[in-house]
């Protein structure tokens, strides 16, 4: 039979509000971190990345914050839109060219 999937934490926000999605990573030696967005039935889509020597990086409507002291990563989405509804994964990368993905957070945007 089917295996039971992970219960994804869900963040529900009103359209136009700001969203903050959090992620705890495991490897303090990771060189970079990436946020991916995954819509139903599609592959992960790159949103933004940040190197380990930075603590903040901004993109278009998105900001990633990195706190290496507590191994915490966050993604801030400004003026959240219905099209932002998806599952968001953080991923960490380093030596070996592989990404380790987190468990994901489901973002639901209410119109």
């Amino acid at each position: 039979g089917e295996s039971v999937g992970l219960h994804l934490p869900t963040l529900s926000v009103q359209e136009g509000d700001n969203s903050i999605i959090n992620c705890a990573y495991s490897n303090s030696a990771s060189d970079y971190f990436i946020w991916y967005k995954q819509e139903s039935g599609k592959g992960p889509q790159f949103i933004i990345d940040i190197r380990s020597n930075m603590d903040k990086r901004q993109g278009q409507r998105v900001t990633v914050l990195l706190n290496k002291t507590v191994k915490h990563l966050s993604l801030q989405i400004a003026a959240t839109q219905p099209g932002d509804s998806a599952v968001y994964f953080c991923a960490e990368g380093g030596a070996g060219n592989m990404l380790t993905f987190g468990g994901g957070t489901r973002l639901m945007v209410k119109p």
Partner: protein
Amino acid sequence: EPEVTQTPSHQVTQMGQEVILRCVPISNHLYFYWYRQILGQKVEFLVSFYNNEISEKSEIFDDQFSVERPDGSNFTLKIRSTKLEDSAMYFCASSTDGTAEAFFGQGTRLTVV
């Protein structure tokens, strides 16, 4: 916009059969990857490939799995004798270098019956 393409989008196979999943990475990329995602679970790394050889592989990537770049454009994942637990979405990805963003394909849903 360049993209990673995967075929087929859905593959159903009987347990014990061999399957080959195909990918065309972005043309100027040098690093290629396979990931899988079991329904409702996180994306898991399988293997990375650079300069015509495997550069990294996970515990999942056992002797039943192999990868190949048979020509200048395709990148394939072969599962020699499929098991029920191989049922998952398989994603191919590519990147310009090992630390750059990886672009993912739409995935192949493999169902083993």
